[in-house]
């Protein structure tokens, strides 16, 4: 059983399109995250939700909108896709406080904008 699963794994789309990435965790964690890893492998936090409430919102264009229907799911919707959005997007989850807990990452969603 995959602990943190995200779909789709690969996504190729044209500039200007809108796309969503879905994420689900079966670990019973209260907190979920979205990280973006660019071509230089820089792993940057985008958002964090705790019990469906947004707790971390980094400087991310408002074209990116996370949605958490329940604490086991955190989806990422991206409007008007741009070339610079091409990256690997990792969903993750953990318990809080994060200082004492492991962050479990999903396998990543490879987004290519052409």
């Amino acid at each position: 059983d995959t602990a943190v699963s995200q779909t789709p794994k690969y996504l190729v789309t044209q500039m200007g399109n809108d796309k969503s990435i879905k994420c689900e965790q079966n670990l019973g964690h209260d907190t979920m995250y979205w990280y973006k890893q660019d071509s230089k492998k820089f792993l940057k936090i985008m958002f964090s939700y705790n019990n469906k409430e947004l707790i971390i919102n980094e400087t991310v264009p408002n074209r990116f909108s996370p949605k958490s229907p329940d604490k086991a799911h955190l989806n990422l919707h991206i409007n008007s896709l741009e070339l610079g959005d091409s990256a690997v997007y990792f969903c993750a989850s953990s318990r809080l406080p994060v200082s004492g807990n492991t962050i479990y990452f999903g396998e990543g969603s490879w987004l290519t904008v052409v």
Partner: protein
Amino acid sequence: QQPVQSPQAVILREGEDAVINCSSSKALYSVHWYRQKHGEAPVFLMILLKGGEQKGHDKISASFNEKKQQSSLYLTASQLSYSGTYFCGTESGRDDKIIFGKGTRLHILP
């Protein structure tokens, strides 16, 4: 504030030792170490909390010097399976936000 990792990359022969450093300009509450193999998700190695403790399992250990705002990851007698990119993630001020460094690419040769 993103932590700084050094070196950026290192190539070793199997059996050699490696040290990866992570430093921050801010006071740290915790340091997390992850390893990512090519095309895969980052995988947890260990967490170190404020207090200067050293942790380890198998031949991988880490230290945390809170006064210097630094952590080091030690890989002893490296194995081929140790190849990958190592990330340190730091938390300042108990805000539950982990900021990752740019990673250190480690390549182990047979």
